[in-house]
């Protein structure tokens, strides 16, 4: 599913934020990505969702080497990834349903199918009464659920979540992680970045630990390194 081989990253002429990282994540697996703030979790995720190109090394995604894939072919890879951003990144001028519908519209799905999928999913995340609301009237928890609905509406093979519980109370954070675990059960590969290790240890999933730009693997739940 994801294969990092000797990946390093620096922003411009700045210091290296990721150093010689190698790992391989199997399809259908679930991984917590843990580490202190500033350790490089977000940078690693950004490489995974193709927002950045590595300074060195290669990144394989869905069997393709993304470092050599022509730029015009990257959007089709991105459409197979669902992303939950820490700051939600909802479009304020669109309604909840239009925000959730974005990936389907980008994929060129017919409007009737878009309505059907979106309506169903918004009810599933418990926001049926907010279908036509704008994000500005929603609480952070509700915004997070809209962001999750948007991330999974196109049935992605890979779900990447950057500190999705960061703005939520512990109970809501736990329920959200359980929701991700449910998605993982139906075959979605999940990588969830969090600095909340007490949350991570409550689930039987492997942990990628990052510190000072270097990756280590939880000894108890080792991920096969590529």
């Amino acid at each position, binding site marked *: 599913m994801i294969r990092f081989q000797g990946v390093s990253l620096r922003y411009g002429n700045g210091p290296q934020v990721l150093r010689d990282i190698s790992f391989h994540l199997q399809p259908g697996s679930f991984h917590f990505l843990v580490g202190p703030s500033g350790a490089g979790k977000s940078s690693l995720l950004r490489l995974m*969702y*193709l*927002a*950045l*190109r590595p300074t060195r090394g290669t990144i394989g995604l869905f069997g393709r080497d993304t470092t050599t894939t022509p*730029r*015009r072919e*990257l*959007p*089709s890879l*991105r*459409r197979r*990834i669902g*992303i939950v951003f820490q700051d939600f*990144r909802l*479009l304020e*001028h*669109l*309604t909840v*349903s*239009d925000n959730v*519908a*974005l*990936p389907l*519209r*980008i*994929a060129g799905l017919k*409007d009737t199918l*878009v*309505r059907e999928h*979106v309506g169903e999913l918004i009810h599933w995340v418990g926001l049926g009464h907010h279908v036509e609301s704008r994000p500005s009237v929603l609480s952070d928890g509700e915004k997070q659920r809209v962001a999750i609905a*948007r991330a999974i509406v196109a049935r992605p093979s890979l779900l990447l979540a950057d500190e999705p519980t960061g703005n939520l109370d512990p109970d809501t954070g736990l329920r959200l992680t359980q929701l991700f675990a449910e998605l993982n059960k139906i075959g979605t590969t999940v990588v969830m970045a969090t600095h909340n290790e007490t949350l991570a240890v409550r689930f039987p999933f492997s942990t990628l630990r990052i510190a000072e730009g270097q990756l280590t693997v939880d000894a108890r739940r080792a991920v096969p390194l590529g």
Partner: protein
Amino acid sequence: MAAPWSLPLGGDATDRFLPWIIGLMVFLAALALALALALGGAIARWEASQTGVLTVELPASARDTDGMIQRTVGLLAVLPGVQAAEALDAAHAEALLSPWLGGAVDALPLPILIDVRLAPGAALSAGAVRAALAGVAPEARIEDAGAWIAPLAETARTVQLVGYAIIALIALAGVATVVFTSTTGLAVHRDAILLLHLIGAEDGFIARQFQRQALLLGFAGGVAGLGLAIGAFVLVGRVAGRLEAPLLPRLVLDPLGWAILAGLPFAGALLAMLVARLTVARSLARLP
């Protein structure tokens, strides 16, 4: 569910400003184009009316010389290259000269004018006619209108070229404006564009939204600008039409001219759309 356009284009200052600028540019371009086209028509009319025509002018005293006018007309009619020669009556001559001389024309000893039409392709010069008439009417003056129409037409053509150059400059300014508004739009909506990019939108999906916006705003501004320009053109044409100045070009357009003018808002909108697309595509190509 709202329209599938995911960027809130149209709500920021640059989008409100674009139709006004395009409207002003189309207004100026339409005026320049209308004047250039009208000038082109005038040049064609001048040249058509004066090609193959000579005017022989006999002094007023020729009326007192028995048969001088008839002999001159007769000689001109048989000259090789002449199709027809006809002396204009006094009333016709007065009508021709009154725009220049006003009421004083009655009191003046008007010359006798003989209109000479040359056969198509004939190369009969004023000098050759003068030489042929030397025996019959030595005081005759030969006016070759083509000789003074040519520099006039040349001047008009130069003005016409300047008009087209102005249109080209206006188009360049329009291109710069659309590049500026598109670049500003990209900066204003940067976060939303980045989000669309990350969730799999192709560059074309994003660029289409900018190009559609530029097309609509450009067309709206263009139609308004053209409407104002037509109003101004018709008004100036009417005022100029009241002047008794036969050499001034008439500000009229033929159907083709009107069709070209009507195409300006479409051309402006298409140009705006194309420039917006290229600007946005070029900027998006910098994203990974």
